[in-house]
C-alpha cells in the first residue's frame, strides 16, 4: 500500500516536476495503455481468460461516449456513466454467450476476436446511427470558460490545456488499480484466482465459475470503456478502425503480459517498459541511423522477445525474485 501511495504521488507531481509537454504526453500514453492493460488483466491475469478482442470494450465505450454527445447533445460528464455501464453490460452479454458454452483458452480468445470484428462491421454498417466509416467527430470547443463543461481541455488555459487530460487518465488509472487491488482481497477475487488455477477444482469446491467469470468480464469491460471515454474526449474523433481494430486489443494484452500477469502493478510496469524502450530505441538506434523508418521497432521487438522468453512472470516477477535474493524475504513488496 505504501508503495502505491508513492507511485500515485509521484505520478500526480510528475507534470509539475517535468514541466515538459513532450514527457507529460509520454506519461499520458503510458497510463492510457496501462488502463487498457488493467482492463485486460482483470479477466486475463486474474481470471486466466485470455481475451484477444478487448478492443470491443474500448470501442463500445468510445462510441457510446461520442454518440450520446453527437446525437443527443448530452453532457460528456453524464454520457461517460452510460458508456462505462453500457460497456459492462456488453461485456456481460459477450461473457454470457462465451462462458455458457464453456469456451476456454484459445477458443475464448478466438470468440472475443470475432466479437471485436463483428462490432467493427456493425459500426461500419449503420451510418445513420454510427456515421459509418466516416467516424464520429465531436465539435471542438475553443472557449476556455466551457472547457470543464465540455470535458475538453485543449483550449482551457495554460495549466489545464497542458495537464488536464493527463490528470484525467491518471484518475482513471488509479481508480482501476484501486478497484483491482480491492478485488484481489475480496472473496470474489479469491474465487476468480481459483477458477484461473483450476476451474474444475474450483467448481468442485462450490464456486460458481460461470458467475465469477461473468463478473470479471464486466469489470474488465468497464475499465477498458473508461479508456475509450478518455480517448474520445481527448481526440474528439472515433471511427470503426480505431475503435475495434486489433491494435487496441494487442496493446491491452502486451502491457500486463510483460509487466506481470495477475498483479496490480503489472500493467503499469509493462506499459512503462514498452513505451520507455520504444522511446529509448528511437533516441538511440533511430537517431544514429537517421531517416530509416522502423529500425527502432526492430530493437523494440527484439527486447520484447527476450522478455517473453526469459521472464515468464513478467517484470513484477523479476522484481519479486530480486527482492527475495536481496532480503531473503518472500518478495511481496
Amino acid at each position, binding site marked *: 500500500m505504501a508503495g502505491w501511495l508513492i507511485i500515485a504521488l509521484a505520478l500526480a507531481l510528475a507534470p509539475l516536476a517535468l514541466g515538459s*509537454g513532450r514527457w507529460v504526453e509520454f506519461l499520458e500514453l503510458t497510463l492510457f495503455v496501462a488502463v487498457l492493460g488493467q482492463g485486460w488483466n482483470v479477466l486475463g491475469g486474474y481470471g486466466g481468460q485470455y481475451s484477444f478482442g478487448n478492443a470491443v470494450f474500448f470501442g463500445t465505450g468510445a462510441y457510446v461516449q461520442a454518440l450520446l454527445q453527437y446525437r443527443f447533445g448530452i453532457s460528456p460528464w453524464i454520457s461517460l456513466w452510460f458508456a462505462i455501464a453500457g460497456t459492462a453490460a456488453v461485456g456481460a452479454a459477450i461473457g454470457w454467450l462465451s462462458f455458457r458454452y464453456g469456451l476456454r483458452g484459445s477458443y475464448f480468445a478466438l470468440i472475443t476476436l470475432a466479437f471485436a470484428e463483428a462490432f467493427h462491421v456493425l459500426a461500419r454498417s449503420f451510418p445513420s446511427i454510427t456515421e459509418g466509416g466516416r467516424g464520429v*467527430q465531436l465539435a471542438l470547443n475553443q472557449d476556455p470558460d466551457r472547457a470543464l463543461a465540455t470535458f475538453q481541455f*485543449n483550449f482551457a488555459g495554460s495549466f489545464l490545456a497542458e495537464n488536464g487530460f493527463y490528470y484525467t487518465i491518471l484518475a482513471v488509472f488509479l481508480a482501476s488499480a484501486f478497484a483491482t487491488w480491492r478485488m484481489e482481497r475480496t472473496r470474489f477475487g479469491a474465487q476468480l484466482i481459483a477458477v484461473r488455477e483450476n476451474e474444475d477444482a474450483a467448481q468442485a469446491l462450490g464456486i460458481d465459475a460461470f458467475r465469477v467469470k461473468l463478473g470479471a468480464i464486466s469489470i474488465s469491460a468497464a475499465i477498458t470503456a473508461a479508456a475509450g471515454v478518455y480517448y474520445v474526449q481527448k481526440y474528439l474523433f472515433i471511427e470503426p478502425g480505431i475503435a475495434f481494430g486489433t491494435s487496441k486489443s494487442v496493446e491491452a494484452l502486451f502491457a500486463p503480459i510483460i509487466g506481470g500477469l495477475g498483479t496490480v502493478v503489472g500493467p503499469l510496469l509493462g506499459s512503462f517498459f514498452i513505451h520507455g524502450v520504444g522511446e529509448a530505441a528511437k533516441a538511440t538506434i533511430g537517431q544514429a541511423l537517421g531517416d530509416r523508418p522502423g529500425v527502432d521497432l526492430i530493437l523494440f521487438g527484439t527486447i520484447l522477445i527476450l522478455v517473453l522468453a526469459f521472464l515468464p512472470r513478467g517484470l513484477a516477477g523479476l522484481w519479486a525474485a530480486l527482492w527475495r535474493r536481496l532480503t531473503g524475504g518472500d518478495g511481496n513488496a
Partner: protein
Amino acid sequence: MAKDITTTTRRTFIRNAAGGAVAVGALGLPMVARAAAAVKVGIVHPVTGWAQYSGSQCRAGAMMAVDEINAAGGIKSLGGAMIEPVLGDAQSKPEVGAAEVEKMAEAGVSAIVGAYASNISLATTQAAAKYGIPHVVDVGVSDKIVSRGLTNTFRFGPGFGAITKAGVASFLAINEAAGSPTKTVAIVNEETTGFGAGIAGIMTKGLEPAGIEVVEVLSHPTPNKDFRNIVLKLKEIDPDVVIPSHYYNEGVLFLRTLQRQKVTPKAIYSVLGGASSQYRFLAEFPDAAQYVMDCNHWFDPKNPAALALKKKTEDAGLFYSYEVFLAYTAMMFTADAMERAGSADREAITEAMASSTWSGSIMPYGPTKMENGQNTGARPLVMQVQGDRINVIHPPEYAEAEAIFPRPM
C-alpha cells in the same frame, strides 16, 4: 605498391579518414558560421504501420522540398536561415501522431507539415493548435479537417467535396465532347471508410440530371481480396461506364480482374481512384491500366519545376505519386509563408499563411486564397493512361492529350 596496401591498416585508415573529415569540416565552417540560426519545421507522417507506403512517399516529397529550399539559400528574409526538418513517425495511429506533435512543439518548430491520413491529421492539427503552431495538411482530403474553426490549420490541396464536384463536371464534359455515348453507369465502391460510399452518392446525384442512369451500385469492404463476383455481375449488366472508387490495393485487383474477365466498358472513370493514375500501377500492370481515366490530385504538366521534381523523384528510385508532390507543395507553401512573415514566430507565419497569395506552386491551382484554412484555388485534374504515359485530358487549359473515349476495344 604492394607495400602501400599492406601498410594501410585499419588504424591508419581511420586516422586518415578523420583527418580528411576535419579538413572538410574546417572548410565548411565559415559558411555555416555565416548562416543565420536554422528554422525548424516538423514533418510528421505514418512511416510505419498500415499507411507506411503513402507516409514514406509524403516524407520523401517534403524532404525534397527542404533540400531544394536549403540549396537555394534557405529563407532569405531570415538571413538565409536553413530549414531544419524535425521528423516524426505517427506509426499510422492518431494518438502517436499527436504525441509526435508534442515533441515537435518542445523542439521549437515554427510550423508542421503532415500527416497524410485524414484521421491522423485531425489529431495532429488539434495538438498543434494547443501551441499555436501553423500546420499545413498535405493530403488528408476529409473536409472535417478544415471545418473545425482551428485557425492554425491549412490545406493547400483540394478536399473531398471540391474533388468530387470537379469529378462529376469533368465527366459530363468529356462525355458531351464525345457525343454523349454514356447511357448507363455502374459504381463500384468501397464502403469501409465512408470515402467510397460518399463518392458513390455524389456521383449518382450529379449524373442523373444529365440523363445518365446509375444501373447498379456494387459495394465491397476494404480490404477486399476477390473481385470476381463484382466483375461477373458487371459483365452481366454491361454498363457503358464503370466508376470505381477505392484504395490502391483494391484498385489494382479490380482493374486486373476486369482485364482478366475481358470486361470492357466504354470507359473506366474513377474519382480519387486508388490505382488509376499511379505510375506504380502503370509500371507493374500496363495492360490493365490502359485508357483508365481518373479525377485526382495532379501536378501542372506544363510546369518545368513539376517535371524536374518528377525526374528527381524517379532518380531517387521512387514513384512520382500524389503523396510526393502534395507534401512537396505543402512544404513549399510553408517556406513561402516563412519568407513573407520574415520571422520564425508561429503567429506571424500563421498570419502569412492565412493571407497567402502564393503563386509559385507546381500544382494546376488558381490564385491561392485561404478560406477557413482551405485553399479555394485548389482543384484536381482528370488523367488518362495512354500507352506508357499518364496524360492530363481535362480541363482543356492543362490537357496534354484528347480523351480517348469510348476506348478502342
